[in-house]
């Protein structure tokens, strides 16, 4: 519900008086200049390499594998983390839930339960190579927002077909505007003390990415 107050009328009245809008916002919007680059120029391979380079600059750990190697690669990453308890979104593909670890599948986990997880494994919506950004739309395979927030270690699995070069290409991939989204560009960081970049403040301190080369 909206709270109608005298201030609402007063503010909108002042804005109306100040701007004298034409009433044809859609046409005016469509006519706005957009001379910037929409599509990237890189080959698929170069685009993947750029993403990997950017992610590594953020201190994220990236490994590549084929679809067939994926379960094994997931297991190796989990084992290499030295962690044992992992959270997973409700609809994470079953073959990613590698045996030998304790899995907390999110069918309505409480924050306290998620807090117990030492890591989390999720899918992603898309990745933008230019800025090294991983996009989550928080679908059932990407997990609720809290799931990729409390655990200190995040493994995100992306298929090569999900990688775009430029940010506008990501927006072109959205059939409709995202209602809920998180764009992650490297692990949590701060430079608030003397502009010294410190990795890991409140979000996950460790970001791992598996890129499935032959996955569309």
């Amino acid at each position, binding site marked *: *519900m*909206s*709270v109608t*107050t005298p*201030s*609402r009328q*007063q*503010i*909108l009245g*002042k*804005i109306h008086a*100040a*701007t004298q*809008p*034409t009433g044809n*916002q859609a046409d005016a*919007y469509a006519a*706005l*200049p957009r*001379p*910037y*680059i929409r599509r990237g120029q890189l080959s698929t391979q170069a685009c993947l390499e750029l993403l990997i380079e950017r992610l590594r600059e*953020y201190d994220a750990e990236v490994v590549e594998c084929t679809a067939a190697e994926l379960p094994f690669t997931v297991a190796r990453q989990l084992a290499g983390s030295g962690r044992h308890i992992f959270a997973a979104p409700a609809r994470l593909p079953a073959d990613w839930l590698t045996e030998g670890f304790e899995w907390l599948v999110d069918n309505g986990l409480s*924050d*306290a339960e998620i807090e117990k997880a030492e890591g989390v494994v999720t899918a992603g919506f898309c990745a*933008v190579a230019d*800025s*090294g*950004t991983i996009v989550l739309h928080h679908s059932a395979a990407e997990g*609720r*927002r*809290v799931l990729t*927030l409390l655990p200190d270690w995040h493994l995100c699995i992306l298929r090569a077909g999900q990688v775009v070069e430029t*940010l506008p290409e*990501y*927006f072109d991939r*959205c059939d409709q*505007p*995202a*209602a*809920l*989204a*998180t*764009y992650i*560009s490297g692990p*949590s*960081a*701060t*430079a*608030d*003390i*003397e*502009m*010294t970049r*410190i990795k*890991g*403040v*409140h*979000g*996950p301190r460790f970001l791992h990415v598996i890129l499935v080369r032959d996955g569309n």
Partner: protein
Amino acid sequence: MSATVEEHAILDPTLAKPFPQAVLPVLRNPQLRKNVAHAIDVIQAKRAKLVAEKADWQELRTAAAAIRSHALDNLAFYLEQFETRCTAAGGQVHWAADAVEARQIILDLLRKEGASEVIKIKTMTSAEIQLNPFIEASGIRTYETDLAEIILQLGDQEPSHIVVPALHINRAQVREIFARKMGLENLSDDPKELTNAARTYLRRKFLDVPTAISGANFLIAETGGVAVVESEGNGRMCLTLPRTMITLAGIEKVLPRFQDLEVMLQLLARSATGERMNPYTSLWTGVTPGDGPQTFHVVLLDNGRSSILARPKHRQTLKCIRCAACMNTCPVYRQTGGHAYGSVYPGPIGAILTPQLAEMHHAQSLPFASSLCGACYEVCPVKINIPEVLLELRSEVVNQERKQVGRVLDPMYLGLRIANLIFAKAWIFHSAQWFGRIGLRFFTGKDGWIHWLPSVGGKWTQTRDLRGLPNQTFHSWWAARPKEGK
């Protein structure tokens, strides 16, 4: 407070000293100036590198400027659309004409929640309306969660920059504040250790405090969504874990469509912190069942903004996306830091925004706190012509002063009136030069320099010497020179 930190800054434009006076303690504080210059140099170097690699930087600026102008030209339409869509998605929209009303709305919401504590994401708008002291006076504790804001809150300091608000404080000073306020005597001044101390300090608060307050980087009219950009993850914590979220946003923050983020996000982080993208951007729309706060309020704040909108040349001030590139590049800000501006919005954007938000009743010295070099306009990602607005505001301030009683007795005013007379006729000008040469001889030292002048002239000789006038002017030399063929 540690001796190296300046006296307590006043960031309320109704109480702050004029810029030339407020700046004096800063100019006498070498540690503070060193801290500011260091931070600025680091950001500037990173920004320059990342802007240079972006082949379409100018094209992005063009698009961003057009989108922001369009949003402001049609602001009522987009705000109503935002309200409709946000409400449909389960949010509650409130309108606040000024700071007093915004504070009261937020306090009432907190009381309704029965809140005794509230966690906050860094928001300059909340500092603008002085929200924290108001809420605290009503017995509700506020916890800032951005690292820089924690440093300021625990150290009882004021922000001096809109993106890195504690850039005037160095690691030793942070250590001192944390050691004292968190009871960690063995803390070192390693930034990593200090950051970890903040992480531990806040972790339980994030999990336990059920109410949060945020600002907004963008409101999206098309969807009723809100976007917040941040680095540390404290924002995500506040946006995800509490039951209730209250977002305070200036009415100018609206973008027409979701897709406009493709322009803004490419510009914002590069301009602000010299990163290709900030570590976290969060976007949410109303309430999502099972994910994040189940009660969501947006407070839309006017507080002088609609008056700025009414003036065509000034309207561009509201295009600002708060990246701080203008202050990072400003030769004045680099020397003074933020506190001298007497406002939560320092630097060039503050110099035009603060007096206008105060409807020209306060902060009249700020439009003069600039050399008009134009560097701010050049870096602005949304192309705000700050020098143009500065000049407009300067003329308004002069017109205000002209109307003041007793103005004719002001030495500066008298001097300018006399200069006006002198320049009007050549013979008066020449006589004035003759008198000036005679008069200045009394002040000219043996070295040919003037080191001291009385009255208004002293404003010059306070900080620089003046060369004594030569015995002959160019005009008299020209007239008296030996002429060819004669």
